[in-house]
C-alpha cells in the first residue's frame, strides 16, 4: 500500500465522555467510548466497522466527521491532520466527507419536498449557480440513486423506507464527497430492500470512485460490502482483517462468537454449525474491565488477560488480532 493511496488514516483515536463529576464540575469518571483505535482506508475501498451496540463504532465515525472533538489522537485526511484544526479551517473538508444515517426518516425534513432537500445540498457550497444547472444537477443526482424524477415533488412521508434511504444518499452525493461515513445505513430496511440499497452502494462506488467507512452490526452485510473489516469491542479494535478472512479464519474469541451468533439461511450448514452462546452482556464502558476488555466473557481467559491489555498484532498478511492467546 503506497502512502498516497490512503485517504483516511486514524491514529490512536480516543473519545472519552465525562460521566460523573465533582461538585465543582471537574469530571472524575469517563465513558471511554473509543479508547485508542488505529485504522486506515485506501482510496476507493470500503472499510467495515462492526460491533454490538455500545462498542463505540458510531462514536468513531462521528469523530472522523469532527461531530465530536476527539479527546486524543490524529485523523489524517489525504495526509492532513484534521483532528485539531479549527471549524473554519475544516470547512473545505466538510464537503468531501459526508454522512448517511441509519434512520432516513429522522434525518429528512418532513416539510420539505424531495427536490428541495436535494437542492439545499446542491446549493450548500454558497457559489452562484444558474437555475438550469441546479435543476440538471438535481435530476442527475436522483437518476444516480435510481429514484424516479417524478418523486421530486413528493414529501418524505410519501416514500418507502428504501426510497428515503436513496434520497439520503442523493443528498450526501450532492457535495461530490470522496469519503462517505455510512452509519448503519441498511439495518432499518427489509431484506429485499436492503439488498437493493447494498447494490446501489456498490455501483456508486464503481461509478464515482467513492470510499466508504461502513458502520454496521450485521456481519453478513459488512462481509458482503467491505474490503477490510475491523471488529470493535468496548472501544477497542479486537480484530482487523480482509473481508475474506473473516469467515475463513477468524482468530479472536469475540469474532468467533459473533460469527456463530449470526443466523444463516442455508439449512444444511445451519444444522451442522456449532454455536458459541456468549454469557452475560457487554460491560458498561464506565466500569470497563481491567486487562483485555473481553476477558469476563471469554472462555479462554487466563490470568494474563485479566491484568494486561493485549496489543493489536499483525499475524501476517494484514490480519491483526488483539488476543494473548495468539
Amino acid at each position, binding site marked *: 500500500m503506497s502512502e498516497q493511496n490512503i485517504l483516511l488514516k486514524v491514529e490512536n483515536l480516543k473519545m472519552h465522555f465525562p460521566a460523573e463529576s465533582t461538585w465543582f464540575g471537574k469530571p472524575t469518571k469517563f465513558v471511554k467510548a473509543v479508547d485508542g483505535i488505529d485504522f486506515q482506508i485506501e482510496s476507493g475501498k470500503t472499510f467495515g466497522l462492526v460491533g*454490538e*451496540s455500545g462498542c463505540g463504532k458510531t462514536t468513531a465515525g462521528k469523530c472522523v466527521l469532527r461531530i465530536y472533538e476527539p479527546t486524543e489522537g490524529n485523523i489524517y485526511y489525504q495526509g492532513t491532520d484534521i483532528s485539531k484544526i479549527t471549524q473554519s479551517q475544516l470547512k473545505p473538508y466538510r464537503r468531501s466527507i459526508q454522512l448517511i444515517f441509519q434512520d432516513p426518516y429522522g434525518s429528512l425534513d418532513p416539510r420539505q419536498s424531495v427536490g428541495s432537500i436535494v437542492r439545499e445540498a446542491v446549493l450548500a457550497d454558497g457559489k452562484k449557480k444558474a437555475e438550469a444547472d441546479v435543476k440538471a444537477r438535481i435530476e442527475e443526482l436522483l437518476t444516480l440513486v435510481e429514484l424516479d424524477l417524478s418523486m421530486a415533488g413528493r414529501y418524505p412521508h410519501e416514500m*418507502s*423506507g*428504501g*426510497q428515503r434511504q436513496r434520497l439520503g444518499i442523493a443528498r450526501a452525493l450532492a457535495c461530490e464527497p470522496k469519503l462517505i461515513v455510512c452509519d448503519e445505513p441498511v439495518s432499518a430496511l*427489509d*431484506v*429485499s*430492500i*436492503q*439488498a*437493493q440499497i*447494498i*447494490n446501489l452502494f*456498490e455501483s456508486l462506488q464503481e461509478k464515482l470512485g467513492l470510499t466508504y467507512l461502513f458502520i454496521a*452490526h*450485521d*456481519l*453478513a*452485510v459488512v*462481509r*458482503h*460490502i467491505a474490503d477490510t473489516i475491523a471488529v470493535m469491542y468496548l472501544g477497542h479494535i479486537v480484530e482487523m482483517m480482509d*473481508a475474506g478472512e473473516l*469467515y475463513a479464519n477468524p482468530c479472536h474469541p469475540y469474532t468467533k*462468537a*459473533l*460469527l*456463530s*451468533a*449470526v*443466523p*444463516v*439461511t*442455508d*439449512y*444444511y*450448514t*445451519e444444522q451442522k454449525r456449532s*454455536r458459541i*452462546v*456468549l454469557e452475560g*452482556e*457487554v460491560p458498561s464502558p464506565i466500569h470497563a474491565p481491567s486487562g483485555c476488555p473481553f476477558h469476563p466473557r471469554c472462555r479462554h481467559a487466563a490470568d494474563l488477560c485479566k491484568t494486561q491489555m493485549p496489543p493489536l498484532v499483525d499475524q501476517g498478511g494484514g490480519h491483526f488480532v488483539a488476543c494473548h492467546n495468539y
Partner: protein
Amino acid sequence: MAEKKHLLEVNHLKTSFFTDSGEVKAVNDVSYYVDEQEIVAVVGESGCGKSVTQMSVMQLIQSPPGKILGGEAILEGRDILKFRPDSKEMRAVRGEKISMIFQEPMTSLNPVITVGKQLTEVIRTHKKVSKKDAWQMGISALASVGIPEPEARMKNYPFEMSGGMRQRVMIAVAVACNSRLIVADEPTTALDVTTQAQVMELLLDVVDKMKTSLIVVTHNLGLVTRYADRIYVMYAGRIIESGTTEELMTKPCHPYTIGLLSAVPKLDADEQTHLTTIEGAPPDLANLPDACAFAPRCPYADEECKNSPHPELRLTDGHTHFSACHRKIRREET
C-alpha cells in the same frame, strides 16, 4: 405419520382496517395451525400482515379502524374469535392460554412500576394466590429465565435493565402464567446478535421445559432456519408458501420466497457478487389487485398471473409443502 393434536387452528381469518384511503386488507384469508410443543415461524416483510394476524387472534385489534371480518381460531376446541374482546373468557385466553412477547420490551412494560409488581399483578390476575406467594412465584420465574439475583431484580424498574434483560422479563411473564402458547412478535429485532442468540436459546429452553408451543413472527430468515419446525411465508396479507423448515429452505417454490432467500447476504460467499434483489416495493394494501399480489415484482409472471384471480395454496410435494403460484401449479399439471 402420527397425527399430532393441533393446539391452535386458525381458518380463513380476515382483518381489515377502514381508513380514509379505503379498506386496507391487512389479513386476507389466512389459515394456519400450531401443534403442541411445536415452533412455528411466520415470515414476511414489514406491512405484510404478520403481526396483525397474531393481534387478531388475540383480539387486540383496535376497533375502529380495524375489524375482524371473518374466520375462526380454534383453541382447545373452542373458537376464541366468538368471544367478545373485553369478555372474561377472552381475558382468560390472553396470558393464561396465549402469551404475547413484543418487539420492544420497554413499551410493553410499565416504566413507573417495578418489575416485581408487574409480574405479581399478572400472576394474581390469573391465579388465586396470596401476594406473598405471587412474589415467590415471580422470583422463581425470573430465575428460570436466567436472570441473576432475581430477588434484587424484582425491585428494579424496567429502565434499570438492559434490552436483553427486559425481554427475559417478558418471557418470565409467559412462564409465570404457564401459557400453552407463546407468540413472540419480532422478539429479537431490537437486540444485538449475541443477545439475540441468548434470548432465542432461552425461548427454546422454555418450550422444552414448559411443554408450550411457540409462534415466532419475524422478518429474519436466518433466525427461523435455526429454530423453527415449520414456516409460513406471508406477502400482502396472504400466506403464499408454507412447509417444514427443511422443505422451505432447501426447495423453496414461490418466487417471493426464492427472492427473499437470495437477497440475504451470505457470510460464506466465495466472492463479492451483486446481491439478487426483488425489484420494486411491497404493494399498497389499500388497492390490492384481484390477481396475484406478487405478480408486479415477479420475474416469472406472465399474462395469466396478472389477469386471473389470486392463486390458492396448493400442495407442491410431500404433504406439508404448500405454495400459491400459478406458474408452479401449471408446470405441475403439464
